C-alpha cells in the first residue's frame, strides 16, 4: 500500500480510501472467511473492518504500518463476529459415489473434510494464527504484532493448532473411521 494514498485518506480523501479499500477488500474477505468459516459472517466482519479503518485512519501514527494495523482491525472484527453469531454449518460427510474414485482423490477429499472439522474445533485465536501464518505467509513476529501478543504466544498457538489439525488427519487414517467414510 502506497503511503501517500494512506496519508490522503487520513486527511479525509474518500477517493483515496476507495482505492485502498478496493485493493484490500478481496484479501480481507478471504482472510475473514478462513477464520470464521462462514461467508455471511466474513462479509460482516470485512464491512465492519473497512468502515472502522476509515474512521480510525487519522489515528494511525505511521502510514507505513498500515498493513499490520489494518489486519489488526480485521482480526478484531472477526473476533467480534465470531462471538456474536454462529450460523449452522452443515455436518458434511463424504458420501459414496457411483464413480470409482482414485485413492489419492478420496484421500484429498477426506483430508479436506477432516481439516474442516478440526479447524472448526479450534478456538478463533488459534484459527487466526493459522490463517495469518499459513494463508497470508506472514512471519510469526508479524502475526504476533497484529494480534498484540508476544511472539512466543503466537508460536504456542500455531503449535497447538497444527498439532490439533494433525490429530484430526491422523484420526481419519484409523481403519474404522476410513471404513465408515468409505461405506
Amino acid at each position, binding site marked *: 500500500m502506497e503511503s501517500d494514498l494512506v496519508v490522503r485518506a487520513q486527511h479525509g480523501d474518500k477517493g483515496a480510501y476507495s482505492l485502498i479499500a478496493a485493493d484490500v477488500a478481496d484479501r480481507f474477505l478471504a482472510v475473514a472467511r478462513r477464520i470464521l468459516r462462514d461467508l455471511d459472517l466474513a*462479509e460482516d466482519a470485512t464491512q465492519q473492518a473497512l468502515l472502522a479503518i476509515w474512521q480510525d485512519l487519522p489515528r494511525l501514527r505511521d502510514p507505513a504500518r498500515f498493513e499490520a494495523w489494518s489486519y489488526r482491525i480485521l482480526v478484531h472484527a472477526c473476533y467480534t463476529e465470531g462471538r456474536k453469531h*454462529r450460523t449452522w454449518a452443515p455436518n458434511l460427510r463424504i458420501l459414496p459415489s457411483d464413480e470409482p474414485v482414485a485413492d489419492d482423490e478420496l484421500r484429498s477429499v477426506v483430508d479436506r473434510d477432516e*481439516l474442516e472439522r478440526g479447524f472448526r474445533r479450534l478456538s478463533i485465536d488459534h484459527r487466526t494464527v493459522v490463517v495469518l501464518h499459513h494463508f497470508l505467509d506472514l512471519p510469526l513476529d508479524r502475526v504476533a504484532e497484529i494480534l498484540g501478543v508476544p511472539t512466543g504466544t503466537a508460536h504456542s498457538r500455531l503449535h497447538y493448532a497444527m498439532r490439533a489439525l494433525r490429530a484430526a488427519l491422523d484420526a481419519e487414517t484409523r481403519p474404522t473411521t476410513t471404513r465408515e467414510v468409505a461405506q
Partner: protein
Amino acid sequence: MSADRDTTRIVRSWLRTDEHESADRVLDTVLALLDATPQRRSWWPARRIVPMNAYAKLAIVIAVVAVVAVAGVSLFSANNRLGGIGGPAATPSTPPASATVAPTPLPTASPTPSAASSPAAAESGWTTGPLATGPHHAQIELCDPRGPRFGCAPDKVAFSFDLPSDQWSSRYEGILEVGTFPDSYAWMWFMGPVHTVGTDPCAGKASSITPTVDGLAQALTTINGTDAVGPTDITVGGIPGKLVELTIHDDIPCAITDFYYLGDVSIHPNAIGSTIRLRIIDVNGSPMVVYSDQTNAELEPQIEHVVDSIRFD
C-alpha cells in the same frame, strides 16, 4: 502422512483451495456508507507528505477557532434545550422524557469529536462507535440472541442508561463493550425473549423453553458444564425480575468458542473464567434480558453502574 511437514503442506493447500471470494458487494456497501461515517480525529497530527506553509497553518488555526466556536454555541444551545443531559450534573434517576427527546441517542457533552453515529444507528435509536461518559438513550427492538427471525418482543423498548467512563463502545445495536479482549473485557447485550437454552452445549444440545422470566431463569440453572447461582430476586429500572449468574467449568470438553449455552446458534462465553449474569425482567409483557459477560472483576463496578442506571420511559 502425519509428519509436521506433511500436515503443514496439507493445511496450506487446504487454505488455498477454497473458491475465490469477491468482496464487490461489501465494497459497494462500505463506499456507500463513507459519506455518513465521520472519521475520528486524533489529538496528534498525522504525517504529511509535504510541509505546511505559513498560510496553511494560519488557515488551520482559523478553522480550529471557528469549529470550537460553533461547537461551543451548539453545546450551549443543546444543554439549554435538553436540560443539561449528557453533562456531569445529570443523574441516572432523572431520565429524559421521551416525549421531548427524539428516539435517538442523547447528545453528549463529550469533548471528543468521535461519538458521531451513522444515520442507520440514529434511525434505530442506538449509537454505534465510541460512547461518551454519561447518560444515553435507546429505543431498540429486543430479540432472541440467535437473531430476529427467532423472535422479538412485539414492541420496541425505550430506556436510558448511564455509562461511568468513556471506555465503552458499541458495534451493534443493543450491545456494549468495554476493555480489551480477552484479559480485561466485558460486553453487555440487551436481549429480548430467549427461546432456547443449551442443555449440553459441547454436544450441541439445547431445548426450547417458555420465553418467560421464570421459564428462562429456571432453564439457565440446568446447563451442563456450568454452575448457576440463583435465580435471585432483583429489580432493574424499578421492574422486579430474576438474576442468574453462570460460571463455566474449566474442564468442559470443547473449546469455549463452541460453548453455545443460549441455544444452538447464539453466543458463547468470553473465556472459561468469565462471570456471566443474566438479569431477566418483564417489559410490556415480554421478557427482556440484560446480559453481561466479563473476564475481569475490575470491570464489575462499571457493569453494575450501567445496570443500576437503567430507567424505562
